[in-house]
């Protein structure tokens, strides 16, 4: 049997040895043990194929892990920071691939890159890291000490030593919140590589370890960014943005009796407007209970700025459920400065500099723009969403949109929006807006925060397409229905951001290209007008059947649509 050894491949040789052992049942090895071993070998082999060795020239390198067939790979910000926009990556197949930087989350120490040249890369699947238990078997695949000169990753196995760990920021950023702790060896160079569970699913990205007096080598405590945090930021990263982490605009502290309470709050913050006050006890955030300051930081650290999440507090003995919009931690320029600081660009201008020296394959895939890591990929994502909207548009046309029916609160309404004018008839009166002019002129109807402007933007995005309306960019992904309005809600949606005619709006677009929400600001530091658009449950075409309009914690009105004419008459 040994004679049939195929040419030199260690894995095959090992497989043959294993097969030889399998063929000697006389020694009484329980077949379950052999099956488990064979399964483990297969799981590790599959994960090996997804491991990326990243070389950042003289400044070292690290690891990465492929998560899509078209070459998107996750790694650490601190791994790619010295490399700049273009880097060379190796896979276990022994080949080198050019790669381009796509998106950065400097605070979370995450970077998304894209390997070029194939659309059939082997890739790992993100698991639900909240399901990970202490004691679970796990393994890391990466490039410790940059040993992978043959591009085949090193594997180190261990168990999960801790979950939901909080690791204070190293320096000013690189906060590891809600991370996984493992005793699998995590050494310098493992940074950015995948942490896998027993089934070979990706549960995290390794990026940090406790190093103390014994030098920069593993001492039994490595930390991985959780898959769930990575998933939360993936939309933002794919959009080529410079992603930011979130703050409530408030700080919390442990009270003498152990409760987690608000110790300070900005009175200009959204959370203040939604009703958060000094000394409020934090009960839960984004659906996760908060019993320690660490737990609070853990939840907050996994959430991107801009998301709307539920916040439950106890205020003077009364339980209050708030819906808050998370603010940015950093000013955009501050983040850009952090990214630039460590980049090895002679001009000291960060990834934006040295564009002319980029390899040809990367040059067409990179566009510098303030606030973005790589604007090229924002256009890619915006156009993808634009195509979905166009496909879902159906007969919607350039003619005036007419929506009419009953208010759930009582009375009839009629809305008409054309290129030039938007008019709404409500039981309380009629309002109109010059749809061709500045949309922030008057936030009408009164009390809505700008409902007519929101409808104008909605119509223009559908009719003209995102690329043609003002300055429209891909914002990322967000929970579909934070207010819990839509019975079909729950998953996440793509979000477009548009700045047009004096207003700023974010439009939520579902997988079918339907716009399911519009948030529109006529002024900063004020509550936006939120329109939530739902279709009838039995309507496969997904035509709007109901609009719910909110401003902050106040519902402006619920519109039950009986007449829906999305300009079908016109071409």
């Amino acid at each position: 049997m040994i004679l049939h050894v195929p040419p030199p491949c260690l894995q095959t040789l090992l497989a043959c040895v294993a097969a030889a052992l399998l063929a000697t049942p006389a020694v009484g090895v329980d077949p379950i043990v052999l099956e488990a071993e064979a399964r483990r070998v297969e799981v590790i082999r599959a994960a090996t194929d997804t491991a990326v060795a990243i070389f950042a020239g003289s400044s070292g390198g690290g690891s990465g892990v492929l998560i899509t067939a078209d070459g998107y790979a996750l790694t650490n910000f601190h791994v790619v920071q010295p490399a700049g926009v273009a880097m060379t990556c190796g896979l276990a197949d022994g080949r080198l691939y050019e790669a381009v930087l796509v998106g950065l989350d400097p605070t979370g120490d995450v970077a998304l890159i894209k390997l070029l040249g194939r659309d059939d890369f082997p890739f790992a699947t993100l698991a639900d890291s909240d399901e990970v238990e202490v004691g679970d078997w796990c393994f890391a695949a990466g490039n410790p000490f940059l040993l992978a000169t043959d591009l085949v990753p090193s594997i180190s196995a261990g168990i999960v030593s801790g979950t939901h760990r909080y690791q204070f920021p190293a320096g000013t950023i690189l906060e590891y919140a809600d991370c996984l702790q493992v005793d699998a060896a995590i050494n310098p160079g493992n940074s950015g590589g995948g942490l896998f569970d027993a089934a070979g699913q990706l549960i995290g990205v390794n990026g940090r370890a406790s190093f103390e007096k014994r030098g920069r080598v593993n001492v039994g405590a490595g930390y991985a960014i959780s898959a769930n945090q990575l998933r939360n930021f993936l939309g933002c990263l794919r959009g080529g943005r410079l992603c930011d982490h979130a703050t409530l605009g408030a700080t919390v502290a442990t009270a003498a009796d152990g409760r987690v309470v608000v110790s300070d709050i900005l009175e200009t913050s959204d959370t203040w407007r939604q009703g958060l006050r000094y000394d409020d006890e934090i009960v839960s955030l984004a659906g996760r209970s908060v019993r320690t300051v660490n737990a609070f930081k853990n939840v907050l650290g996994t959430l991107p700025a801009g998301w709307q999440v539920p916040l439950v507090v106890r205020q003077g003995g009364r339980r209050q459920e708030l819906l808050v919009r998370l603010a940015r931690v950093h000013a955009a320029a501050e983040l850009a400065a952090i990214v630039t600081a460590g980049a090895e660009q002679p001009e000291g201008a960060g990834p934006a500099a040295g564009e002319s020296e980029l390899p040809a394959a990367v040059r067409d895939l990179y566009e510098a723009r303030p606030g973005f890591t790589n604007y090229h990929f924002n256009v890619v994502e915006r156009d993808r969403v634009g195509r979905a909207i166009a496909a879902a548009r159906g007969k919607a046309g350039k003619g005036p949109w007419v929506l009419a029916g009953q208010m759930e609160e009582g009375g009839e309404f009629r809305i008409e929006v054309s290129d030039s004018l938007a008019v709404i008839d409500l039981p309380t009166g009629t309002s109109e807006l010059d749809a061709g002019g500045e949309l922030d002129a008057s936030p009408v109807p009164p009390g809505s925060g700008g409902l007519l402007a929101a409808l104008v933007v909605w119509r223009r995005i559908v009719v003209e397409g995102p690329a043609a309306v003002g300055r429209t960019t891909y914002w990322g992904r967000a929970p579909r229905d934070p207010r819990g309005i839509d019975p079909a809600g729950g998953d996440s949606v793509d979000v477009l951001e548009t700045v047009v005619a004096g207003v700023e709006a974010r439009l939520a677009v579902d997988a079918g290209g339907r716009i399911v929400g519009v948030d529109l600001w006529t002024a900063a530091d004020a509550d936006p007008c939120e329109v939530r658009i739902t279709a009838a449950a039995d309507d496969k075409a997904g035509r709007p059947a109901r609009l719910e309009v909110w401003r902050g914690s106040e519902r402006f009105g619920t519109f039950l649509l009986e007449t829906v004419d999305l300009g079908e008459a016109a071409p």
Partner: protein
Amino acid sequence: MIRLKLRLLLQLVVVGGGIAAVAAAAVADTPPQQVIAQAARKVVKLYGAGGLRSLEGYQSGILVSPDGVILTAASTVLDSEQIDCVLDDGRRYVARLVGVDPRRELAVLRIDATDLPAFPLAAADSVAPGTRVYALSNMFGVAVGDERVTVQRGVVAVVAPLEARRGAAEAPYRGDVYVLDCTTNNPGSPGGAVVDARGRLVGMLGKELRSTASGIWLNYALPVTELAAGSDAVLTGTAAAAIPVDATRLDPRIVGAVLVPDLLDRTPPFVESVDPGSAAARAGLRSDDLVIAVGGRSVSTRAAVEQALGGLAVGDPVRITVIRAGSLEEFDLGPRPPAGEQP
């Protein structure tokens, strides 16, 4: 012939693997995650003195009786006016130092609580090299409040006498320890539990030590049989409840003298302040006094003061000699109090 030998070797390997596998299958009744979760409930986080440079102010402990007896490593962390103890579920207690077994560097603490999950010491038994174990400790202080301590897995690599040192000093314990094959002994680890695959207590992680032979950091645990003997000795009063010379330093704060912070390699032992009403205040010690001898033993650094003081048995007279305004003065501060007592 060579082929034959190789085959024999392979079969031996397989037999060995098979036995290990069968053994693993036999204890696999309870999933490891559950074994770990149950063991973790019996490990506590301890907070006391320290926080300077490489002297951590935290370590771990093991609950060995439902009414609050805790075993931990005797260390400077315990030289504190208050030792805080946080249980796995986040409950906080102030722990009292019952006593110390200086030979095993084992300390017994007590908290006022009942119905606690605990490891029974009565059934303590040794384990052989090759035993698979889990180590549970609050290494690096990474867990706070109700967060679970760190869990690592490893194997008892060898059972051997501890020949180790801390700095220049030899470790006082010369008996056998379990040397582990994973990096378990980190800052915060001392006092952590080592359990077998069924969750039974196998040993306690010791202080950070280096091998006298090789200088490498050791990963080891004091066997559970030694824990049982040591805690018996402390609880029955057969172990001196004192801390041995050169093993543990004692801050002169215990007699009310606050020295300048130990920030240099050789910090001169100036008195920074004197706690009002303390033995030092009553004797007449003042700030800016420079301590030059403790109990007639000459000292030139803050560390030496702490060591000299740590070398006095409880009840021994504390005599401190200082230089004040160019002249020598000697003060008698009365008997040395126990480490845990308020000054």
